[in-house]
C-alpha cells in the first residue's frame, strides 16, 4: 500500500481503518440481505402449507418474504385478515402452492388486521411494488366500528413497518401526513421508536418549520429503516431454519382449472359441517357465537345504527389511504370483498337495502381509484359461500376468491 506508507501525519491512519471496517460491514450486510432474499424466495411455495400459529405469526411479521414475493413475477400478494388463516385446502395460498396455472399466492394477514396495518406493510415494500399485482381482501366487519379497535391494531402492529411508512421517500408527504395522523390515534405503539414517533408528530404538525425538521430527520429515519431491514433479514433466516418439512401438493395434471367442479366439491365438503342451522354457517361457529347474536337483544342491530356506524367508520379513510399508497407505489391492485350473508343480517335487524350501502360505498371507492373490484354481492343469498357472518369464507367461497385471483394474475378479470 504505497499510499499508506507515504501518508503524513500517521494519525490519519485511523480514518482508513474506519473506511475499511465500514466496507467490510457493508459487504457483510449486503450479503446477508442478498442471501435472505434468495432463501425467502425459495421457501415461499412451502410457506403457505404450514398452519402452525408460531410460523404464521412470524411469517406475517417478515418483510423479507413479502419482498421476495414482490421480486418474483409469478406471485400475487394477497393482504387481508383472519380469513387468510382458514384451514382449508381451497385457501388461495394453499390452493396455488404448486402453481397450477403458473403463479403462487403469498397471503399476508392475521386476525384483526385492518387497512392501516396493511398500509404500513405495503409501505415497507416501497418501490418493490412497482408493477406488482396486489390483492386486498376487505372484511365488512372492519366497517362496523367507528374506530378500529386499539387491541386489534396493537396486536398486529410492527414498528419496522410503521417507521417505513413515516420515512418512505416513494410516498407523497400528503399521504404520509394523513397516515401519521391516523397512526397517532394509537400513539403508544410508536413510543418504541422515538425517531418514528417524532417523524409522525412533525408530519402531523404541518407547519413550514416542522416540515423542515421532518426533512432534517429523514436521513436518520431512513437509516433506522435500514437497521430494521437487516434485523428483519436475520429474523427471517431464523424462521426459514425452523420451517418444518411439508409434503408438496401434487395434482394429477396442471393446466386450466374446472372452477365449477372445484366449487361443487368444496360445497359438498362444507355441507356436512354446516347442517345445524338455517343460514349455512359452520356448525362450530354457529354454536359458539352466532346463534346467541340472534337471541341476545344487546347484540342486535337496527338500520339506523348500522348505517351510522358503517358509513362513518374511519376504516374507510384507512382503506382509501391504502389505495392511494398502492397508486403512488405503482402497484396493480385488486379489491376483493366477502358478501354479507343477507338473511342472517336481516334477522339481526339490518334490512337488505341498508346492507347494500356497504357494496355501494366500496364500489364508489374502487371507482375513484380505478381499481377492479369483486365484492361477490351476488352470493349474498348463497348459503354455501360464507363460513360465518363475520367475513370468513367457506371452502366454496374460497374457490370463488381463487378464481378471481387466477383471472387477476392472467389479466382476464371481467
Amino acid at each position, binding site marked *: 500500500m504505497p499510499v499508506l506508507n507515504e501518508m503524513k501525519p500517521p494519525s490519519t491512519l485511523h480514518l482508513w*481503518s474506519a473506511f475499511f471496517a465500514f466496507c467490510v460491514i457493508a459487504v457483510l450486510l449486503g450479503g446477508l440481505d442478498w442471501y435472505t432474499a434468495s432463501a425467502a424466495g425459495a421457501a415461499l411455495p412451502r410457506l403457505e402449507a404450514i398452519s402452525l400459529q408460531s410460523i404464521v405469526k412470524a411469517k406475517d411479521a417478515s418483510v423479507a418474504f413479502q419482498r421476495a414475493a414482490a421480486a418474483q413475477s409469478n406471485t400475487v400478494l394477497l393482504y387481508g385478515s383472519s380469513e387468510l388463516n382458514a384451514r382449508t385446502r381451497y385457501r388461495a395460498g394453499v390452493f396455488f402452492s404448486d402453481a397450477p396455472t403458473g403463479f403462487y399466492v403469498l397471503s399476508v394477514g392475521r386476525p384483526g388486521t385492518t387497512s392501516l396495518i396493511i398500509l404500513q406493510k405495503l409501505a415497507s415494500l416501497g418501490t418493490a411494488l412497482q408493477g406488482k399485482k396486489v390483492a386486498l381482501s376487505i*372484511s365488512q366487519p372492519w366497517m362496523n366500528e367507528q374506530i378500529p379497535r386499539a387491541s386489534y391494531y396493537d396486536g398486529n402492529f410492527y414498528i*419496522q413497518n410503521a417507521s417505513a411508512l413515516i420515512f418512505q421517500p416513494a410516498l407523497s408527504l400528503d399521504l404520509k401526513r394523513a397516515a401519521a395522523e391516523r397512526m397517532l390515534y394509537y400513539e403508544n405503539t410508536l413510543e418504541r421508536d422515538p425517531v418514528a414517533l417524532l417523524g409522525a408528530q412533525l408530519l402531523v404538525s404541518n407547519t413550514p418549520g416542522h416540515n423542515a425538521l421532518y426533512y432534517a430527520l429523514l436521513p436518520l429515519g431512513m437509516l433506522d429503516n435500514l437497521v430494521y431491514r437487516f434485523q428483519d433479514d436475520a429474523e427471517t433466516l431464523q424462521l426459514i431454519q425452523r420451517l418444518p418439512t411439508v409434503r408438496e401438493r401434487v395434482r394429477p395434471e396442471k393446466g386450466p382449472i374446472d372452477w365449477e367442479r372445484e366449487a361443487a366439491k368444496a360445497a359438498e365438503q362444507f355441507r356436512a359441517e354446516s347442517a345445524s342451522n338455517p343460514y349455512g354457517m359452520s356448525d362450530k361457529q354457529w354454536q359458539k357465537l352466532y346463534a346467541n347474536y340472534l337471541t341476545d337483544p344487546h347484540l342486535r342491530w337496527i338500520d339506523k345504527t348500522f348505517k351510522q356506524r358503517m358509513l362513518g367508520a374511519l376504516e374507510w379513510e384507512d382503506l382509501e389511504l391504502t389505495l392511494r399508497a398502492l397508486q403512488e407505489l405503482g402497484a396493480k391492485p385488486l379489491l376483493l370483498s366477502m358478501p354479507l350473508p343477507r338473511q342472517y343480517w336481516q334477522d339481526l335487524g339490518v334490512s337488505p337495502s341498508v346492507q347494500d350501502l356497504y357494496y355501494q360505498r366500496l364500489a364508489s371507492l374502487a371507482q375513484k381509484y380505478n381499481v377492479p373490484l369483486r365484492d361477490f354481492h351476488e352470493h349474498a343469498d348463497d348459503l354455501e359461500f360464507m363460513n360465518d357472518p363475520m367475513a370468513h369464507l367457506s371452502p366454496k367461497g374460497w374457490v370463488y376468491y381463487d378464481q378471481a385471483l387466477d383471472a387477476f394474475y392472467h389479466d382476464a378479470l371481467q
Partner: protein
Amino acid sequence: MIKRSTLFITTLYNRPRVRVLALTLLYLAIVLGLIALYGKGDFSTPPFIYQGY
C-alpha cells in the same frame, strides 16, 4: 524477553499497514460486538383477544 517483544510489537505497530489492519480489526470487533448486544430485532406484538373477525 519482554523488552524484545515490546520492541517487536512497537516496530510492527509503527508500520502503517499493520497499524491500519489492527485498527480495522478493532473497529470491526466493536461493531460486531454492538450488533451482538443490540442487533436483535424485537418485532413482537402485544397479545390481544380476538373477538370476531
